Each structure stands twice: as structure tokens, then as C-alpha cells.
């Protein structure tokens, strides 16, 4: 399944390394990555493919959130369909 990982918070070193490392360990492929600064906030958006990962989505989401807390960022993963639904006709 394709999902969107978003990381928001104050910019700091090592965010991409930390998040991509986490995804690599779980066999999740990063298909696209982009970053942007919104006001003072750093935002990174990754398109990922979770089909090779053995971990179920709920525990993945929980683990990502936990990892986000450790690095002081807000990290989420969401099924891509929510964005397709809301932003495409």
C-alpha cells in the first residue's frame, strides 16, 4: 500500500537520516521525498510503499509517532487515499 509520511517541527540536523533509517529497517521503500519550510516550521513529505513490510499499519503508525517524539518532531503515516479523496475530483 502507498502511504504518506509527514514530518513537521523545528528544523534540525539528522531528521531525514533518522526517518529514512527507520523506514529502511522495516523494509519500506521511499518513492518520493520533498521538503518545504512553512513559516518557521520544517515539513518533510515522503511517499512510501509499505507492501514489502511485514509490520501492520497500526503498529507502524504508533512506532513512527513514538520515534517522532524522541527527536522532538511530529511524525505521521497516512494511507494516500485520504489525500486523493480530499484533493482530487
Amino acid at each position, binding site marked *: 500500500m502507498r502511504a504518506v509520511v509527514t514530518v513537521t517541527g523545528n528544523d534540525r540536523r539528522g531528521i531525514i537520516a533518522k526517518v529514512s533509517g527507520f523506514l529502511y529497517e522495516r523494509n519500506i521503500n521511499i518513492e518520493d521525498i520533498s521538503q518545504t519550510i512553512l513559516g518557521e516550521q520544517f*515539513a518533510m*513529505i515522503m511517499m512510501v510503499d509499505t507492501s514489502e513490510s511485514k509490520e501492520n*499499519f*497500526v503498529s507502524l503508525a504508533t512506532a513512527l509517532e513514538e520515534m517522532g517524539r524522541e527527536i522532538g518532531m511530529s511524525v505521521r503515516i*497516512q*494511507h494516500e487515499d*485520504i*489525500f*486523493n479523496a480530499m484533493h482530487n475530483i
Partner: protein
Amino acid sequence: MFSKFDVIETIDMVEKEHLDIRTVTMGISLLSCIRGSAKETAQAVYDRVMKKAKHLVPTAEQLSLEYGIPIVNKRVSVTPVSLITAAFPEDSALVGHALDRAAKELGIDFLGGYSALVHKGTADYEEVFLKSIPEVLSSTERLCSSVNVGSSRSGINMDAVRTMGQIFRDTAYLTRENDSLGCAKLVVFCNAVEDNPFMAGAFHGTGEADTVINVGISGPGVVSHALKFVPDADLTDAAETIKRTAFKITRAGQLIAREASKRLNARFGIVDLSLAPTPARGDSVARILEELGLEVVGCHGTTAALAMLNDAVKKGGVMASSRVGGLSGAFIPVSEDIGMIESAEAGKISLDKLEAMTCVCSVGLDMIAIPGDTPASTISAIIADEAAIGMINNKTTAVRIIPAYGKQVGEMVSFGGLLGRAPVMPVHTGSAEKFVSRGGLIPAPIHSFKN
């Protein structure tokens, strides 16, 4: 494909603007549960609800995590109980208690359908059923009750309207220890809909499929935020902004409704396009109206602003969902909306203005506290006025009013949580006793004869 700005926008809607799915409501038919005795029927009802809705809460929680959209309430609506207990109406409470027990065990917040449809006349068994409502609402926690007393096709059953005035009073008295909370779980309708996912008025109509999923969206905070970006827009452009926002919100609801029905092996019923507020700051319908340029909700201009909002939400939402239904419009409950609470506390909104607002939005006089010593006939007259608005205008109207036992104008009732708090508002003191006591049926309006 969506852009990174779309992603950020959705996340901001959830995290900063209170976007959520207000309710995923499973409608369950109870017609197959009728047995030879009340006891057996109550057991069959309990078993059926437990079986059908077993996975409702975990599935909704899973969907919420997968899509990153909070789903606030998981609810069940059932066939009007008066139909299920028609053969033994004096024991209707047994079924009510069985439903309440199922609701608690399933972990759902409200279960609707302790209801009767008496819009053209009250059958003997329904008369007995109606009398059971105060006792049942005071001895249950999560059960909600509704009564349809009128329709555009049939007129208004004034005998039932008279009965319901007293039933509100009795319910208020029996739940006096909790600010007459029972009345927050009781609603009287004209033109009730069979697929409403919202409480307290949800029931599963007899014209519905066996098990359906109806979803109620929310998002007044999102609409009000979007309007902040167009502070100088004229009202045509403001309506356009509301439409676009409603489209996005509804698409989220449509996605959840489709997935939930698939996973729960139920029919996809409808998406209800209502903007439902909560007492939380930033989640208020009143604030949208104020964002449009009103100093305070309740001032002159409120009805026009609400009419525009309600219509724009529908236009955006209808295009976003394949099946729209329920009440679909803006809700204006006093106790559940911080803007309404503050306006009422400051004496800036009256019962009369609220009544006018119900002519152009989806429901009616909702979650309004009035003095506990208001005569039953006055409450009946309030119901009759509201039902007349619904009957003549071919729309749903409702009354969920709290005659707060022992309280006077200026005092507060406080229910906590999503039900919020409300100052006791004054009612007109002239008597409608004679009018209400006439009873009978107000005939259906001339424009109901469409065949």
C-alpha cells in the same frame, strides 16, 4: 495526484482546525427480533446488536489511524422500539435496558432508536410506549429517544405534541440530580429522516436495508479558518470558499463511509453533510457566522448568514459524495457551540431568533435550557411552532429542549463533554394552554397534495 501543499493542508485541518469525522453510525434493523414475550424480545435485540456491531469500535479506530482523521463517535441506531414492543408496550423498558447494556459493552457512546413515529396518530401501544420514555431515559445512560409528531404529508399530531410537553417535564424531573440530563437524550421531530447518523435523533427506518453505515462529517473550524483567508470577499465569493471547503471535508467522510461499510459487511448508507459543532474553541458554527461579518451570533443578519452557509455546505457536499442524506445542514445547538454559549450568556441571542434560524438550517431548537417551571403546555406550544415550520417548509425540524428542574433564567446547566453547558433562557409567559389542550390533528398543508 496531490501536492505537498495538499498534504500540509489536510494535516493542518486535523491538527489546528478540528477536522474530524463526527460519527460513524451503524443502523441495525430489529424487525427480526420480535418474539412472543418482552423478555425474549429484549434478549434477541441484545444478541443482534452485539453481533452486528461487534467490530464497529475497533474498525473505526483502525480507520482513524490509517487515514489520520479522528473519528469522534461510534454509534448505533435501531428500528423504532415502539414497533418492536407493539404487542407488549408496557414492557418496552426491558428492550430499552437491553439496548443500553449492549451500548456499554460495545463501547459506543450513544445508541438511538427508543423511538415512535406518531405523525398522523398515536396508536394505543404507542401511547403506552411514550409514557415509558422518562423512566427509561432516567435509568439508562447511552440510550437516546426520538418521537416524530408531524410531517408535511400528514400534518401535526397535536395529541402527541401535548403528551410530549409533559414527557419533557417528567424526564427533566427524573434526571434532576444531573441538571435534567435526560432531556438532552430526547428529541421531538417533524419530518424525521430514516438515515440520520446524529444523536439524539438517530433511528433506523423501516425502509432501510438490514445493516447500514451512515457517516456524519464535521468541520466548522475548517470552514471558519478558510474564511479568514478571504476577509474582504463579497458573499458570492465567501459562499464559493465554503463550498470548496465542504467538498474536501465531505470527501473525507465519503472515504471513511465506504471503507467502514466494506470492512463491517454493511451497506453504505449516506454521508450526512451537517456541520456539527462541539463546545471546544475553534469548532463552532456561530464563529463561522461571525467570521462572515456579524458582531455576535443572534444579531440581525444571523438568519441570512446561516441560510447562505447551510446552502453552500450542501452544494459542496453533494458533489463530493455519491449518497447524501440524513439531516445535512448546519447544526445550531446552544450548549454544544462555544459561540452560541457566549452569545446566550451575554443575552445576545433569544429563543425567537433561534426559532427563525431553524427555518433555514437543518434541525431546530437544539440543546436549549429553559426555566424548570415552564408549563408543559408552553413546551408543547414550542414543539408545535417548530413542527409547523418543518411541515410548511418541507424540512426536518426538531426540539431538544431542557426544562432545567429547579433552575431559573440566568442559571446554568452543565452536562460536560460534547453536550456542553447552557444558560437558562427565558420563554414567553403568555399561556397556550387552551390551544394545546384542543388536541386533534393540524391538517396537512395544501401543498402536500402533489399526486
